[in-house]
């Protein structure tokens, strides 16, 4: 499968391998939207398990953004990974899998990665108006948006 896709995208797929029996591929952000569409339509990855991100502050391209996909007919999982820099936005997958809606919102909430074409991109777990994206590595574990807490909860600190 990978070779087939490789033929189509050439350098778009940078790496495709298996770790601990789990397949993943690292691709260029530019092709990812098309690739996901093809994975669903042609390769029958009809179930988007999860969308998540990992933050590496010391890298130039700070974020790993992952799609974990599953195919019911093939009983197979695959992880599609791209690397993007802070502030870069990614095409949304909502039109491919409806489930991407909340998952992308959560990624936006936690990492601040914007998704283009998302119907309603706003915070999901944290309140609107909160500042900062807590799952970034530079966000301390007891750090919080004091201003928001004081304004909305009327207390000095949420700790």
């Amino acid at each position: 499968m990978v070779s087939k896709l490789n033929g189509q995208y050439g350098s778009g797929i940078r790496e495709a391998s298996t770790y601990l029996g789990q397949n993943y591929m690292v691709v260029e952000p530019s092709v990812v939207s098309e690739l996901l569409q093809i994975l669903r339509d042609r390769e029958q990855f009809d179930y988007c398990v999860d969308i998540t991100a990992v933050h590496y502050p010391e890298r130039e391209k700070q974020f790993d953004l992952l799609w974990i996909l599953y195919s019911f007919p093939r009983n197979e999982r695959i992880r599609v990974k791209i690397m993007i820099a802070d502030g870069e936005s990614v095409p949304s997958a909502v039109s491919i899998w409806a489930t991407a809606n909340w998952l992308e919102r959560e990624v936006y909430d936690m990492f601040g990665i914007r998704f283009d074409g998302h119907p309603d991109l706003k915070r999901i777990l944290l309140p609107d108006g909160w500042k900062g994206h807590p799952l970034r590595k530079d966000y301390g574990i007891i750090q919080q948006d004091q201003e928001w807490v004081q304004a909305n909860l009327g207390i000095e600190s949420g700790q």
Partner: protein
Amino acid sequence: MTDRTMIDSKAIDPKTTASKVADPYLSHLELDQPDKTFLDSNELVINMGPQHPATHGVLRVILKLDGEKVLGTECVIGYLHRGVEKIAENRTYTMFNPYVDRMDYVAAVSNGLGYCEAVEKLLNIEAPPRAKYIRVILTELNRMASHQLWLGTHALDIGAMTPLFYTFRDREEILKIFEKYCGARLTTHAFRIGGCQYETYEGFERDVTKFLDFVPPKIDEYEELLTSNRIWLERTKNVGVISRADAIALGVTGPVLRASGVKWDLRKAQPYAAYSEFDFEIPIGANGDTYDRYTVRMEEMRQSLRIIRQAVERIPEGPIMAKVPKVIKPPVGEVYHSIEAPKGELGYFIVSDGSTQPYRVRVRPPSFVNLQALDVMVRGALVADVIAVIGTLDIVLGEVDR
């Protein structure tokens, strides 16, 4: 409704929502273009929760209603957000283990199983067979307990009070077994990375077997109260229907997916623990309505009993802990492991940077993804159906919000 009848809440006051959108949650409900008719030209926007008896915790659902018909919903979640994933990055692998119990607190054992297996996978070790069997027994007991709790509360939402007490009576027996095994009833922390910490106590098999004999008539009792009850049928048949295609697109898992006719269960599809060694069926539904989800879960309880019985009969002797280093330092890499929790696919995506603390732990919560289907399921239904559908999704807000 009139302005007069609105309580003065900034969130739901239509004066503000109709003209300028004060609450950003209301924006996509398109309040400016109501479905106008002569008399019912006013839509009612009603706020359900976060404190509401039927939202199973602190879920806030904003309903846009035409009379009692639901035109759209918007879930507001996060009231229980504790930053579990952030906590994980600041704890060692072992220290984080008890935290996962606090997500889906009614199925804490399943959470623990998923996490332990994910870390084991990352370490590339495997739990010994006896530990696997203990894990299966406890996890399936926990599935029973979770389904029982679901049934009780779901029936209560629909108005049948009595099943709640029956299910809680029987769930108590499971919790007693947990308590005897590990000392805790709810947040059990039953498993450790690499196996189980505790050997089964004296009489564990006897207790479990006794429970296996005790509970089937009780399940029949629940069914007797509900399955062929006319009102129950009317309240659940063709309510909250989600088609097979929608279910897959929305990524719902667990009984919700199976009720829509997809015969898929991770215990069969990608067996973990010792599940490949047991003989059991995957119940599926045909219509994807609330009634199907009910029957699927009822059948799942029976199948769980079947698995437990086989496991208890065949439980091997041997060690319960694999050789795990004192300090857990998995090699650099990332792994995704998921199990079939009572609510659906519970996945852990763990990234290791080679240190004692996980670099990133992502939990793929089934409740969170399933809750997303609420809007699809209740559009065009009535307010009472929203209650039924929230119940049938079997969400736990601790897991939705993490």
